[in-house]
């Protein structure tokens, strides 16, 4: 295998930042479960460095270890040497995929799903319509059988919401309702691919909260999927296509908000992905909804919630974007709330994009641990700011017999009806 690509040379240089101290090990979910050095950040970095140095004879043989990585970035937060693990991993995955695209039905399905369905709103809607229809007809198992939905996803995905909740938000400019104190700031909203059909209510809540707090909201029609899943799957070229379209779609906006940690993290990394001035400028415009609202301050008091709420940090928010304080600050402003922090709230839940479909066993083990930690603090509700995490946590709470609603933080910021 020839490893000549520029990004790989750069990622190789990044591997040299690792001094092999091991301080990242206890923070790595896969190492916690497996206890295998090659499944730890230190070990993976070592293997990726060896690969770049030409010391790996059969690159395919180290791939399973890299595939098992959640790309959760907990190791980056823990690393005193400042190793940029995500960049190394993504460049290496891309190179491996380029040199030898994965074969097999699962790989094909992944590629097809990611590019032809997830990244295509119309087809994605169609898939969700099919799923919903089959569910209504009691045919969820058939959907699984027909591979409309992989078995592992069937366990994770909560029931597809009814059409009324899946309806996309109207594109264009939304103005705050009359009587609202205007803030003289216009923001753009990135609506995301899965968030729309699966958690339409979150997007609706986001819009409502922004409007109620006096912000004008622009929802560009031509926006696309952020491309994060493609980057994780080692397909940066396709991700770049999407990224460039998003750069254009939001060209007229100064502030681009999102409510999905995974997308937000990926978009803040367009700088690195695209390597262009446009990419850099776009990345600088992106903010998580919680970052923005915490800085601007709430003017519309949220509705009262006299309940115990556990906040769980999505990896791509806390490790990927360093945002931990803001969501908590905002939630504290909900009247009556008893906000608690579960043990290891910044540990991955095992969702990690489509990881729970690709590595169901490991994801389930990680999910179980997460559910146990959450259950410990006896919450009435769990909140977390990423659709994948919401599904995974919900599924594992249900599977371990705890019926606790899982919500997005923004849903608790809705003003009284």
């Amino acid at each position: 295998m020839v490893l000549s690509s520029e990004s790989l040379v750069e990622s190789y240089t990044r591997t040299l930042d690792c001094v092999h101290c091991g301080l990242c090990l206890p923070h790595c979910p896969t190492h916690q479960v497996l206890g295998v050095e090659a499944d730890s950040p230190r070990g993976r970095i070592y293997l990726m460095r060896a690969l770049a140095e030409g010391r790996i004879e059969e690159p395919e043989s180290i791939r399973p270890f890299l595939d098992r990585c959640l790309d959760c970035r907990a190791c980056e937060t823990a690393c005193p040497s400042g190793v940029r693990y995500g960049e190394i991993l993504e460049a290496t995955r891309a190179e491996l995929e380029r040199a030898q695209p994965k074969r097999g039905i699962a790989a094909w399905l992944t590629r097809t799903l990611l590019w032809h369905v997830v990244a295509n709103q119309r087809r994605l809607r169609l898939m969700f319509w099919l799923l919903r229809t089959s569910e209504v007809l009691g045919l969820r198992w058939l959907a699984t059988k027909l591979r409309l939905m992989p078995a592992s996803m069937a366990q994770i995905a909560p029931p597809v919401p009814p059409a009324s909740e899946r309806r996309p938000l109207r594109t264009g400019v939304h103005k705050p309702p009359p009587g609202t104190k205007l803030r003289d700031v216009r923001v753009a909203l990135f609506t995301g691919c899965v968030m729309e059909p699966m958690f339409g209510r979150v997007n609706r809540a986001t819009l409502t909260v922004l409007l109620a707090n006096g912000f004008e909201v622009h929802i560009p029609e031509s926006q696309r999927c952020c491309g994060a899943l493609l980057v994780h799957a080692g397909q940066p070229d396709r991700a770049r296509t999407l990224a460039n379209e998003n750069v254009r779609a939001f060209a007229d906006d100064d502030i681009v908000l999102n409510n999905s940690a995974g997308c937000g993290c990926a978009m803040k990394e367009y700088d690195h992905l695209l390597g262009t001035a446009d990419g850099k400028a776009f990345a600088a415009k992106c903010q998580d909804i919680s970052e923005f609202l915490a800085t601007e301050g709430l003017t519309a008091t949220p509705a009262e919630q006299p309940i115990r709420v556990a906040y769980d940090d999505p990896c791509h928010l806390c490790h990927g974007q360093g945002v931990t304080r803001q969501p908590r600050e905002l939630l504290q402003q909900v009247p009556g709330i008893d906000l608690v922090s579960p043990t290891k709230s910044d540990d991955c839940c095992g969702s990690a994009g489509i990881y729970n479909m690709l590595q169901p066993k490991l994801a389930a083990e990680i999910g179980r641990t997460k559910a146990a930690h959450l259950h410990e603090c006896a919450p009435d509700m769990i909140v977390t700011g990423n659709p994948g995490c919401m599904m995974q946590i919900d599924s594992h709470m249900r599977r371990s017999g705890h019926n606790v609603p899982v919500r997005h933080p923004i849903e608790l910021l809705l003003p009284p009806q």
Partner: protein
Amino acid sequence: MTSPAKSPNLERDLAQLLGRDRVLCTRDALLAWECDGFTVHKSRPRAVVLPESTAEVQAVIKLLHSANVPFVPRGAGTCLSGGPTASGNAVIIDCARMRKVIKISTEDLFAVVQPGVVNLNLTTEVTPYGLHYAPDPSSQSVCTIGGNLAENSGGPHCFKYGMTTDHVLAATIVLPDGEVVHLGSTTGPRTPHGIDVLGLFCGSEGTFGIATEITVRLCRNQQEVRTMLASFDSMSAACRSVGKIISAGLVPAALEILDQATIRAVEASIYRAGYPENAAAVLLVELDGPHEVVVEDAAEIATIFVAHDALKVEEATDPKERKRLWKGRKGAFGAMGRIDTDLYVLDGVVPRTKLEEALEKITEIGQRHRVNLTNVFHAGDGNLHPNISFDGRDKEATARTIAAGHEILQLCMDLGGSITGEHGIGTEKLDHVSMMFEPEDLEVMARVRAVFNPDDLCNPGKVLPQRNACAEVSKWPQMVAKVLDVEDTPQEPESTS
């Protein structure tokens, strides 16, 4: 050392014992285990196995012993002297999945753990009972109790509370021929009568067998803990105040010094602790005990700081603030990665009264060899950790690094100290052992080891130089020659498939 016998089906036999998931023999992936924190010495293992119980370790060792295949125990691989590196195509017996806390006795104050239990996790587990496990290497969030036992590890608080050996009560050991023995006693002193064989095992660096269950002492948390941080505009002022604190009869729980380069690296990292970056050195002091005593001692120490022209003194009793002050110290090694690609952590000891002199000479040695040298150390014990940052891909720079290290260790001995305080000999200091011990001393050690490990199958090539080579005190460490030479490539393992 005996050469590994040809046994093409070894991997298959191992898989039969543990299941295929817990036997790793993908040749390329095995590179991940080829070194510990001492990255200069690399050697790929033949296979890695992950047993989960004493019985499994025993079965694996019996198999390897009968096949005459060498093996190496491994914990978290944070050793800094090459201890868990698999010389001679050995099989690594990795204890990472032996991580159960088997028993906690809050009344008799002990815990029985499997060797792969992470040091800090044990303390976390017993915190609700107001207890902790005292030895606290800076790697405590990662390193294992098994590794600590094998290295007789120390840590900042060992100045007051003693090293690992002072906290290990009993252990179940699988000897290198597969026999299982129980050493020490769980309650009371380790060996009330008889020979303290477990004492010999402590610090044997994985060459006497594999510990599979370890009973350690738990300590009660002190009523009050106070952390003080003083910064100075010269290293010698920091060292002199340490001398003064100790000669005044005070016994802090910890006395740690970081130099300016270390402070700056730490402050640039996520372990940033708010150390003043203009200071030439910071001194971290921890006091613990009954409230009145701590308050009184803190006042006395503050006076000593003032008398030594401290630039700034901070004090914290709040756990969160204390954690912040410690954070920089704990992340110091890792933060060095910001300086260069590789790090050589030295571990020499000098009499406390010679700290200043030693540091001056070390700086001089560093300059002469043109290496990037920083210092962070356990000042209370005179245990120095000069860190040399270098680019391991540059053979010449690596050779200079090792040569400088060699001279520093020589210096420690000349000043009446030792070549290691806590990181062990491993392969790193094989060249230096003969500088420290007479041939007769080494012969006794070799004979003791032969009792435990007669066939030299358990962690071969560590701690003691080859017999007969002892007398040869080399001026220039052989390690340099090895590095400048082609790196020793591990033998081809037999493929299984």
